[in-house]
């Protein structure tokens, strides 16, 4: 395929135009990533330079994978990512189906639905922290009314629920937009044909609409897992800070705590490398299958 060729008058101009992007990538991605790769195979020196860093090979990874806390974090991440993905996608799909059925106020609702996406994660976290605050929050008060004693500072289940809700809430907007677009791209005549074919509303949804949404659903699933695993630092930092007793200390948060709070850079770097590997796998899955279109 012949692509359009642009000729620059100055031969350095194209490089100058590319430079900002390249520099940002180098400084904020390639450099830290390579540092992490290097550090992950070293045991850190002490703060006074008495003992220099020593090369330890796979040792950091071996220790890490034997550490119950790391495995706990892995499990917490799994539950959290699954919970967030299911909750945010489920609610978004429900909203999208309802809004898609509207005729007149569709645009207004769509606009409102998108707002949460513009809220910074830390602010969203604080918001949920207030709402769920065991002392002053409105929700524990309501829950107490129905006999549930909410305390995410003591109960790990409550804490997990809190971060799942807080993280999912923000992602609903994004999922909603994709689901709505997906629903609108399904020809109405298919639904009508199914209605004539004797399928009730629920049956139509599960046998026609939902399968036809599968490419969107799959795409969103990957995006949401990536979001839950890597993009929820702010939410957790503003609400549970990984507690109580590590119950919500998901992988990304643990990297931060071990590296910057506990100053164990070797372990932290090894954890980063594992996370990097997970991102790469998810990205490959996404490109492989989205390109190929799922199902039909």
């Amino acid at each position, binding site marked *: 395929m012949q692509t359009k060729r642009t000729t620059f008058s100055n031969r350095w101009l194209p490089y100058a135009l590319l430079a900002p992007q390249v520099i940002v990538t180098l400084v904020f991605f390639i450099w830290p990533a390579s540092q992490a790769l290097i550090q992950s195979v070293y045991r850190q020196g002490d703060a006074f330079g008495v003992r220099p860093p020593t090369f330890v090979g796979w040792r950091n990874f071996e220790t890490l994978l034997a550490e119950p806390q790391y495995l706990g974090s892995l499990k917490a991440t799994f539950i959290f990512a699954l919970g967030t993905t299911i909750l945010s996608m489920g609610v978004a799909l429900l909203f999208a189906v309802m809004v898609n059925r509207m005729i007149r106020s569709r645009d207004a609702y769509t606009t409102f639905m998108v707002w949460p996406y513009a809220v910074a994660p830390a602010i969203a976290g604080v918001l949920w922290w207030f709402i769920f605050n065991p002392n002053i929050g409105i929700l524990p008060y309501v829950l107490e009314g129905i006999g549930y004693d909410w305390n995410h500072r003591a109960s790990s289940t409550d804490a997990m629920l809190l971060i799942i809700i807080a993280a999912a809430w923000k992602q609903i907007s994004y999922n909603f937009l994709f689901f709505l677009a997906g629903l609108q791209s399904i020809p109405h005549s298919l639904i*009508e*044909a199914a*209605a*004539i074919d004797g399928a009730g509303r629920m049956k139509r949804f599960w046998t026609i609409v939902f399968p036809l949404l599968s490419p969107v659903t799959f795409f969103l699933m990957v995006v949401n897992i990536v979001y839950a695993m890597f993009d929820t630092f702010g939410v957790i930092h503003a609400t549970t800070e990984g507690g109580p007793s590590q119950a919500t200390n998901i992988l990304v948060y643990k990297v931060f705590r071990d590296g910057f709070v506990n100053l164990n850079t070797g372990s932290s770097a090894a954890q980063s490398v594992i996370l990097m590997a997970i991102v790469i796998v998810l990205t490959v899955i996404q490109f492989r299958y989205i390109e190929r279109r799922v199902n*039909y």
Partner: protein
Amino acid sequence: MASIHLDNLHKVYAGGVQAVTGVSLDIKDGEMIVLVGPSGCGKSTLLRMVAGLETITSGTLKIGDRVVNNLEPAERDIAMVFQNYALYPHMTVFNNLAYGLKNRKFPSNEITRRVTEAAKMLEIDAFLDRKPRQLSGGQRQRVAMGRALVREPAAFLFDEPLSNLDAKLRVQMRVEIKQLQRRLGTTSLYVTHDQLEALTLADRLVVLNGGVIEQVGTPMEVYNKPASLFVAGFIGSPAMNMIPVEYLQAQGATLPEILPDETDLVGIRPDELSLNPPSDASLSVKGTLMLLEPAGAESHLYIHLEGSDQPIVMRVSGVPQMQEGQAIQMYTSVAALHPFNKASGRRTG
């Protein structure tokens, strides 16, 4: 198998659009009715009202002996073939055909029997495992037909099912639809804006204009005796020529006595004009040949009439040896004149 009765049906859309106005029609059991009319005249709306996909604003719709105004599409015992086929893209051809039967809880051996039978009838049995996107337009069209007929419904509804096919396939499918409908004897309502399709398929033709029925009749009745100026202009190609009576009189033509008094426009079909005087009583008109348009076995002559701004069209077989710009004398048999009244738009006799 059932008759369908439309009694004074009206449809007003939410925005206030009056799409169908006072349509009454009795469709006999086993009859093939074709709804024809220009774009936007309410054909699809009317069909969708029968299908139950649009609500009926007022009037009564009966399928068989049941009033079905408020029944869901699934309860009306009809099947519909959509213009875009509306095949389920994620299901195989087999499942597309079986879907309606499964929803109706048919036993699986019965489903297999019916689907295989329909597939054989439509010659799509080789594609049962394919998805719709792996089929050509014509094959998809057959699958859409198959989906309608496995259900063995009381009536078939077709909304321009052939309009996405190329010209050759369209003719072929038209013939097949007609044969199939004859064979199964299922009451059918068929929408098209293609008048040739309408004339060839219909047992009776319903010409719709602006949401109102202009004429109902067999194709030959409608063609030979169009009830209004609209029908005269819409059915037949090239369209019927309309010549004001005043003009003919000014040209010194003697109009036959038999034309009713209120006639002020006469219609002449392009093939009723000839270059030689017919044996019976005739009318003759003079003009100049503006354009000679050969169209294979026949030719269309566009003729300018002195003192009239509307050219008339004449159809002759073969390609006549004539020069553009040459003077022409045309004849038509008096019996072939269609008398109309311009103000009412109706036929006068």
